[in-house]
C-alpha cells in the first residue's frame, strides 16, 4: 500500500500526516507515508483543497483533517473494499 499526504507543508498537512501514522500504528499497518509538497504533483491529483490523503492513487480525504479514529475507519473501508 502506498500512502501519500498532499500539502505544501502547512500546519494542517503536518497534523494529517501525524494522525495517519498514528492510525496505521494502531492497525499494525506498515507502509511508508510519503509527503507530496510539489504543487504540480498535488494538482495532478485533481484536488483544490489541501491537505489531501491518497491511498494507492485514490483520494480519500481532501481539505480537512479527520481524527485518528476517522482515518482508521477510512483505512479499514478501503482495505475491505479491496482497492488497497
Amino acid at each position, binding site marked *: 500500500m502506498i500512502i501519500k499526504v498532499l*500539502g*505544501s507543508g*502547512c500546519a*494542517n498537512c503536518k497534523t494529517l500526516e501525524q494522525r495517519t501514522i498514528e492510525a496505521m500504528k494502531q492497525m499494525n499497518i506498515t507502509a511508508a507515508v510519503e509527503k507530496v509538497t510539489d*504543487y*504540480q504533483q*498535488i*494538482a*495532478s*491529483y*485533481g*484536488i*483544490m*483543497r*489541501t491537505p489531501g490523503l491518497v491511498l494507492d492513487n485514490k*483520494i*480519500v*480525504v*481532501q*481539505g480537512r483533517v479527520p481524527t485518528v479514529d476517522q482515518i482508521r475507519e477510512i483505512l479499514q473501508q478501503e482495505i475491505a473494499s479491496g482497492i488497497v
Partner: protein
Amino acid sequence: MKQKIGIITGLLIVWLALYSNLEVITDFLVYSVLQLERTSPLTSVIHFFIYEVPKVLLLLTLIVFFVGIIRSYFSPERTRTILGGKKLFAGNVLASLLGVVTPFCSCSAIPLFLGFVESGIPLGVTFSFLIAAPMINEVALVLLFGLFGWKTALLYMFTGLLIAIVSGYIIGRLKLERYVEDWVYQIKAGHNDLAEEQRTLSDRIDAGIESVKEIVAKVWVYIVVGIAIGAVVHGYVPEDFMASIMGKSAWWSVPVSVLIGIPMYSNAAGIIPIVQVLLEKGASLGTVLAFMMSVIGLSLPETIILKKVLKLPLIITFVSIVGTGIITVGYIFNFVF
C-alpha cells in the same frame, strides 16, 4: 437531531441573555467588585477590555456557527463548476460573490488557483475570487459589525466586492496569461472522484460547530491582544490625537496607510480592535478602512505564495490594481463622510 436542536436553542438563549446584559455585568465587575474609580484612565482601559472581549467573542461564535452552516453548502469544486464557461464581468461578479461564501484557506490558494485555471476559468475571473475570498470573511464582518455597527460592515462588504470585481475584470482585459508560470497550463489534472458527501442538516450543524472550534481557537489570541492594545489607546491617548495624521485633512494619509498595510500580516481579528480606537481618536473612516483592507486583503506573505504560479509582472500588476482600488475606496469614504 431533536436533542441537537434543543441544545442549540438553549445555547442561543444563554447567548442572548449574556450579550444583552454585557454592559450591566461589566459595570458591576468594574465598579462594584473591583471598586475602581470612575474617572481614572486606568478604569476606562479595564472597562473597555472587560466589555469588548466577551462581546466580540460572543458575536464571533454566533456568526461563525451560522456561516459554517452556510459554507457547508459550498465547496471549491462546486464553485468551479458554477464559474465554468462564464464570460468576463458576469464571471467576475459571480466569482467575487462566491469568494465570500466558499470555504477558503490561504494555504489552499495555489491548488485552488491551479484547479480553476486548469479547468478553463479565465484568469481575471479567478483573480476576482482570490481577491474577495480573504478580504471579505466572517471574522472581519463580525468585528466591524460589533465595533462599528452594521453600516460600516455592509460598506466594507460592498466596497470589497467592488474592488474584487473591478480588479479581476481589469486583469482579465489586460490579457496577462503569459505571465502565469508556464507549467501551470501544462498540468494534466487527474480526475478526482471523491464524491461530494451527502450531508444531512445534522451534519451541517456539526460543520458549524466544527468551524466555531477551529476559528475561535485560531483567532482568540489576536482578538484579546488587539483589544488590549485598543483599550490602552482608548484610555491614555488624547482625543483627536490621530486627526492630524490619519484625519481627512491629511490627504496623503490614505495611500500611506495602504503602503504601511501591505507588508503587515494580521488577520481581521487583530487589526480591527486597533482600527476602532484609531477612529475614536480622530482618524477618518476612509483612511482606516483603506488601512484595514490592505492589511487583510493584500498581505505580503500571501503574495509571496502566489509567486510560485505567477511571474513578477503579474504580481506587480495585481498588487497595483488592488492597491489603487483600495486607495480609491478610502478617498471616496473620506469625501462622503
